[in-house]
């Protein structure tokens, strides 16, 4: 079965959605991500949706779910790279993407995640294997 790859980078998990997701793929991504957060103890999840030409209420719900689920697992979620037309459409549709942070691009998203979990910096340096700085 198709799957969206999840990359681990230090305390973060990175996901780049390159294709328009059909429902099964999206729900798989949701459960895969939550399991990965649990397995790796990741503190942040970054989802790049720059290649998505539309986000409907279903996809919006999936993104929101990922955010809320990760939050319960003590990880922050940031969605990056939303196309302007998608943002316009989402707001008119009435979807606010609650529960997830957003950032303009991957770089700013990473920065936001680092700031968000910044208070744990001391712990980070202890765990050498996960250190990326």
């Amino acid at each position: 079965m198709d799957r969206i790859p999840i990359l681990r980078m230090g305390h973060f998990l990175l996901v780049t959605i390159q294709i328009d997701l059909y429902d099964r793929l999206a729900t798989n991504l949701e459960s895969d991500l939550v399991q990965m957060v649990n397995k790796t103890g990741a503190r942040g999840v970054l989802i790049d949706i720059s290649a998505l030409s539309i986000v409907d209420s279903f996809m919006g719900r999936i993104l929101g779910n990922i955010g809320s689920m990760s939050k319960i697992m003590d990880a922050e979620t940031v969605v990056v790279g939303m196309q302007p037309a998608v943002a316009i459409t989402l707001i008119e549709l009435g979807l606010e993407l609650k529960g997830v942070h957003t950032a303009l691009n991957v770089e700013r998203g990473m920065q936001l995640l680092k700031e968000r979990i910044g208070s744990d910096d001391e712990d980070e340096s202890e765990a050498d294997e996960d250190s990326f700085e």
Partner: protein
Amino acid sequence: MMKMNQKLMKIVLNKDSMRIEKEQDVVPFRNRVKENAVKIGMGVVNQTKLITAASELVRNMLKYAGGGLVLIEAITEGRDSGIRLTFQDKGPGIKDISLAMKDGFSSGKSLGIGLPGTRRLVNEFDIKSIFGEGTTVSIIKWKNG
């Protein structure tokens, strides 16, 4: 808007149809809508609104009626050109349309933004439903609307 409709006729330039039976049909259907919108030169923002609206309606159709038929038409009315999508299903129908069109209402497991949200994305929205027989939803997005 009713007055305008009486004066100007909507002329169908191109007709296409697609049967929707399973969730895997959603993405190809969206692509088909996009192709048609690109063909008439619709801008990216309007394209995105139209495709998102189409996606919402096609999901409704799958969820409540198990699928149906969608007509994709390129139409003109006076100087305007646009895309009309007609979603026909033989599902259970909607008991109370005015309630279904209310923000926040949902009978299914969703956010309840489906129908009213979708209406905001398009220029014309028409819904007809006979309880027990099926539902037909028709939307129009004008190229410059």
